[in-house]
């Protein structure tokens, strides 16, 4: 068994090396597919973490009319506290809202001093659980609050976050579609390169067939050749991804710092890398298997 595997790997490597000119082609095709998929996983992972972070701090702000009565305020607060998705409520008075504005935008602070009245409304700032309610239920809550007496406006952060998530999902599926096409192209390239390799060794295949070698013994080395192409292509792609990230990470962090907290840019986990290499080897194996099955036949 082990002797057979050693034979397959030895012969597969010899075949790969003898046809290295053509093998490079399939190796690069696999490398491109793995590179795109790896990039997608890295970007997708960071986007998911960022959206999660934003989702956790997503707020529902209920702005009160200046003339809202204490009963109306209480009714709004009761409605909020009755909602299971609400995990916290901060009451912000008109004076606190003004103070916060002056603290956050000191350049504009003098303008507020010239205003005859405090233009900022009192509000309830509501923290929502990340996954405690569906978007539709929260939409209904926001709509109900907007119609309550004493409420001037309702601002709901999660709406645009949901849109962002939907956009992210769309981009993710487009990416997976692109990867699927690249994987198919890689499998076809491996198939054709292995078939070329088998064509170059057709006399040897004929001899092996005539002396009664089991078909698995004849096909095995070519399946291994496909797996070698897949594995090396994946390693090449991961190396290129790592190098690319090492070069781009400082610039990306600097760019992102002003917009949002990207956190430390992380490379793929060991599990993900092993999965990509195994997947690429499986694609190579499939390509080799198709070529070997179609080319080496008994009789």
């Amino acid at each position: 068994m082990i002797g057979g595997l050693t034979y397959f790997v030895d012969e597969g490597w010899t075949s790969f090396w003898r046809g290295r000119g053509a093998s490079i082609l399939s190796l690069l095709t696999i490398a491109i597919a793995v590179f795109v998929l790896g990039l997608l996983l890295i970007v997708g992972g960071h986007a998911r973490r960022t959206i999660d972070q934003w989702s956790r701090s997503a707020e529902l702000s209920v702005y009160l009319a200046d003339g809202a009565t204490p009963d109306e305020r209480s009714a709004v607060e009761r409605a909020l506290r009755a909602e299971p998705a609400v995990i916290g409520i901060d009451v912000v008075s008109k004076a606190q809202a003004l103070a916060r504005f002056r603290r956050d935008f000191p350049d504009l602070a003098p303008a507020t001093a010239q205003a005859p009245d405090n233009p900022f409304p009192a509000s309830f700032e509501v923290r929502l659980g990340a996954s405690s309610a569906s978007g539709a239920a929260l939409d209904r809550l926001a709509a109900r609050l907007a119609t309550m007496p004493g409420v001037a406006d309702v601002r709901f952060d999660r709406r645009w976050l949901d849109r962002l998530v939907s956009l992210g999902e769309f981009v993710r599926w487009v990416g997976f579609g692109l990867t699927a096409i690249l994987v198919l192209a890689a499998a076809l390239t491996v198939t054709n390169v292995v078939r070329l390799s088998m064509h170059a060794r057709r006399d040897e295949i004929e001899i092996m067939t005539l002396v009664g070698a089991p078909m698995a013994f004849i096909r095995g080395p070519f399946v291994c050749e496909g797996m070698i192409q897949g594995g090396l292509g994946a390693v090449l792609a991961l190396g290129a991804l790592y190098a690319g990230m090492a070069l781009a990470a400082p610039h990306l962090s600097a760019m992102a710092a002003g917009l949002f907290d990207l956190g430390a840019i992380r490379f793929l986990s060991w599990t993900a890398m092993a999965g990509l290499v195994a997947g690429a080897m499986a694609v190579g194996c499939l390509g080799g298997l198709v070529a070997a099955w179609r080319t080496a036949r008994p009789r």
Partner: protein
Amino acid sequence: MIDIDGLSRRYGGAISALDDVTLHVGRGEFVFLTGPSGAGKSTLLRILIGQEVPTSGRVVVDGKDLSALKPADIQRYRRTVGFVFQDFKLVPRKTVFENVMFALRILGVPDVQQRRKTFQVLKWVGLQHRATAYPIELSGGEQQRVAIARALVNEPVLVLADEPTGNLDPDLAIEIMDLFRDMNAGGTTVLVATHDRELIRRVGRRTVALDHGRIARPA
């Protein structure tokens, strides 16, 4: 060992390579299959190694009905029979030793035994000193001896040879035939296809002649 009954092989329905051939070769026999080019010798051998399927008739080798064998069974059958070809069919990138040992490797024989038996059979054909040479470095006679060693190394009960001396000069042809005679003396059934009448006369064994796909002279 070989029982052929009413064997026919036609191509495209019209061209008949073999026509109603009936032949029996007993266990331990040495038989020459002769006839002019196009007589059907090679077609008969291709059927006997499972490369072609008869159009009609029955071929039984060592109790196995060849027309009933599945692809995997054909490979298994071939491992029990030795073949020697006119063009030697050696793997150019393997050494003499590797070419011969390969026949044992596919049988799953342990490494040590593979090496021991390969050395023994190379010694028997007188090529132990060329074990590390590649086929391209050998003469025609030496290449055919390697092919014979490969055919014999797994101790087959039957050896089939298609014009094994076709590419060799007369002296080398006699040397090769001596090897076939020696293996037959050891109990192996041998069927050799050749059109060399002088060689047949010198070896002096049973001869079956084919002509236009039919048995012309059963002996």
